[in-house]
């Protein structure tokens, strides 16, 4: 499962700590999600998508083989 969290975060010039604080999770969790090592729960996935003004299926793509494509 690829996601666009890192791409969207860097585009907005945000740090991982800032995103973590906005989502109410730890910085380590944001790092794990960006690295694809942790799949967030459905509520957190929606929160991430809303935070970046995207839909969940645009933010998380099971068929996407390369991040940011």
């Amino acid at each position: 499962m690829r996601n666009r969290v890192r791409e969207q975060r860097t585009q907005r010039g945000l740090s991982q700590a800032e995103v973590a604080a906005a989502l109410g999770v730890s910085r380590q969790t944001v790092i794990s999600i960006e690295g694809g090592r942790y799949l967030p729960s459905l509520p957190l996935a929606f929160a991430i998508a809303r935070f970046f003004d995207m839909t969940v299926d645009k933010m998380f793509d099971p068929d996407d083989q390369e991040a940011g494509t």
Partner: protein
Amino acid sequence: MMRFIAPRLRKPVGIALFGTIYAAAWLVHGGNGWLWAIVTEIGVIAFVIAAYVHGGRDSDEDALYGSRVDERQQLIAQRSWALAGKVTMFAAFVGLTIGVATRATWWWSFAVIIAVTGFGYLLGLSNYGVGEEAPADDANDGYQARSPVTH
């Protein structure tokens, strides 16, 4: 009760409480037990301070000490406890087997550990929904199934 305590203090308070109860057990033990009680309480105080300091740092482990975990860290803790339970069960099984084979008098203590761990597992299955067997809420319940392909 823990909800009334600040998150960062919960683990230290728990450690202090159970550690002091254990130290008190050495006092009740009598004889030179008071010495072990003092040693235990010193260790407990050191552990409480360490837990409080760790609770303020920025890592997964320290978030657990500080009782401020997010969903991923909670999952890590649950998996760790599950692993601890499996290791306990296996170690108790080895102890029980050796105890029975050598006709030791302490074999039953391992049987108690296995029984308590097994009961905890069954309690978990009961609490977390495995027993919630319900008939399927099928939209076509009572009606003949139809093919989605129209002819």
